[in-house]
């Protein structure tokens, strides 16, 4: 793998390679000293053009745990505010010879553009409504840890599929791993030809009982302004995952941040079925694995070199 731009580019073997590496990092983060020298001396640029807590902090921490030097640039206060184009920003940051650039942008195609204009490995940390591949990989990792396999697991993704890059990446990643996926939401928030992604489509929760895993999407309040649904009240009445709808055997996931009382009722968020905190923890090791795979991995099919995991010696 040269870049991580979209799940659509990945094979099942690619995904499994990242997951295997993530497994080995899981042991590292449980140590007292959680740092390994794998990427010592290499520079990673985090370029976030859109607000983000989880993704930016976990990429930053992942890079630091691998001993890389990290530069984080946010739109506010940067030259982007002064009208610099993305291409020029990339040219400027390329002067530091980064090994990887992690980019989040509100525009689909931004990561692909960065990959065209620099020689660093590019990680798409979310581009518009297109894809969010690291989220999908951490979700697969979380589920695989809990269930052992995704083969024939029945997953329902519920909510605003139309505007969700998480939904797109996750449908592709879950199906590549052998799961059966159904997307469900208001008909106005399901994209045209959604089934062409390789999933089933449902418009109500009557068959939610079939699901082994329920993956709820964030319902963005600003969508109300465009009248995609008549009211949040009606949305919650039709699609909210609550204690009545969620069966005890079903697992619950959510990419965060959660709107309590809208897509999820408080009782399910705090229930033991919820993997939401596991997802955040998985985010760190999976992002470490992504950086490792792009910058040090073998890249050849089945030829993954396992990372050397001796702890970094602490300076006195």
């Amino acid at each position, binding site marked *: 793998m040269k870049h991580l731009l979209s799940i*659509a580019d990945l094979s099942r073997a690619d995904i499994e390679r990242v997951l295997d590496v993530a497994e080995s990092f899981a042991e590292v983060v449980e140590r007292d000293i959680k740092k390994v020298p794998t990427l010592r001396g290499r520079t990673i640029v985090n370029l976030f053009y859109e607000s983000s807590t989880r993704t930016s902090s976990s990429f930053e921490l992942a890079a630091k745990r691998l001993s890389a030097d990290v530069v984080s640039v946010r739109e506010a206060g940067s030259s982007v505010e002064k009208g610099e*184009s*993305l*291409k020029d920003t990339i040219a400027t940051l390329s002067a530091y010879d980064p090994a990887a650039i992690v980019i989040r*942008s509100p*525009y*689909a*195609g*931004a990561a*692909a*553009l960065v990959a065209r*204009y620099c020689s660093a490995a590019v990680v798409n940390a979310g*581009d*518009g*409504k*297109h*894809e969010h591949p690291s989220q999908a990989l951490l979700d697969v990792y979380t589920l695989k840890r809990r269930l052992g396999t995704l083969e024939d697991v029945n997953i329902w993704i519920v909510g605003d599929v139309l505007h969700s*890059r998480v939904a*797109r990446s996750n449908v592709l990643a879950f199906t590549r791993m052998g799961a059966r996926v159904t997307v469900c939401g208001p008909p106005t928030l399901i*994209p*045209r*030809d*959604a089934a*062409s*992604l390789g999933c089933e489509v449902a418009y109500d929760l009557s068959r939610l009982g079939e699901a082994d895993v329920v993956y709820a999407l964030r319902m963005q309040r600003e969508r109300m302004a465009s009248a995609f649904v008549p009211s949040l009240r009606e949305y919650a009445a039709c699609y909210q995952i609550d204690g009545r709808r969620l069966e005890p055997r079903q697992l619950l996931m959510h990419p965060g941040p959660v709107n309590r009382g809208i897509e999820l009722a408080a009782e399910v968020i705090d229930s033991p079925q919820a993997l939401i905190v596991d997802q955040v923890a998985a985010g760190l090791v999976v992002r470490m694995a992504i950086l490792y795979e792009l910058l040090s991995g073998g890249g050849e099919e089945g030829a993954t070199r396992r990372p050397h995991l001796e702890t970094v010696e602490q300076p006195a």
Partner: protein
Amino acid sequence: MNSVPGPPPARPRLSSAEGRPAELLLRSAHLIDPRAGIDGRNDLLVREGEVAEIASPDAIEPAAGTEVIEAEGLHAFPAFVDPHVHLRTPGREDEEDLDSGTRAAAAGGFCLVLAMPNTDPVTDNASVLGSLHERAALEARIPVGFLAAITRGQSGDELTEMAELALEGAVGFSDDGVPVASAEVLRRALQYQRLCGGVLALHEEDPALSAQGAMHEGAVSTLLGLEGIPSISESTMVERDAAIAGYEGGRLHMLHLSAAESVLAVERAKGQGVAVTAEVTPHHLLLTDDAVRSLDPLFKMNPPLRAERDREALIEGLRSGVIDCIATDHAPHARQEKEEPFEQAPMGVTGLETAFSALYTGLVVPGVIGLDLLVDRMTAGASVYGLPAPMLAKGSPANITLVDLDAEWRVGETGYESRSHNTCFAGRELRGRVMVTIASGSVAYRERGFAVRLADDSLAAPGAQR
């Protein structure tokens, strides 16, 4: 084709810089002109910028001072007409001007282009239009016609002074770039057409259905998470406006059709006797939304590249005549504007320098359409606006494109005549290359290598002189 109603305009509708009338002989070229009923190897003599004689090969003895082009193995067509280009003048001369735009056109084999009025300021009054004609008389390498806006500032509200604009040489009227969203405003324009004449050329799109769409709505937009522009955004407006034109008895031209449903709508309107014509671009005939998977902004334009079934319907429409002509919708953009993420980049691609070669390579070589049909549809844009179509006929002004159909070239390998390089065919290997373009009686373009070869030949043969 329908004639244009109304009185003849005072200012000529086409302008170009004065050129030297050509004196030349195309020796033994394969002439194809479906309109003139010619298809075969012939000599063609141009004298004082007019087609003076067409005769069997080697039958014509040129007078002294006549340039002889040994055209054995080459094809000569009536030069092409592009009824839809954006020359970005006034306002964005950094992207294109009348000189560079008409040079690009001549390099593509065109002898006439019609420019759209979405300039800055908008070509919506007689002074802007008049100044464009005056500049064209200084700069344009081939004749140019200018459409004027239907509504002031292309805002869709009030009609422009269409009668005065017609007298100032407006070749037609269009708000291209945006639709005339209000049915009431379009109806008034059609009524007013009885006074001022001039075809109303419509960019058909329902802004509410297109919203912030960046590409065709379908499986690919779903995969890419890009907002879609549905086919019905175009086709419902084609149907609406054809119905209004039928009711008012007006004359419409539908710009850049992209959707199968729109072709059907035009076919139905024509069947009902509505005075409507339609055009299609090379990129819609050759590419689909599949190309957008790359997220390369060179594949972003409006209307968007659609599905394969749409492409097939457009080709069928071109064959059957439901679609009258080919137009490039040549839309230059500054380099930095296309170096943005797909979702942010502006819509539009250049097309003048690649139109013939791309269509010849993509449709004629594989046998999808015949060469004569391509030549017909690439010259038919003139009649849509009531202008004489270029013809290879004795007494006609010389409008001739000499093409080497066997030449293979890579788009962009020798740069571009246009100031902008945003072609969706960049880097493609194409067959068929324009060698010489004669527009309105003057040589407007010679391919460099070909010109050098000719010069060498004429040195070798002292009898033939320039």
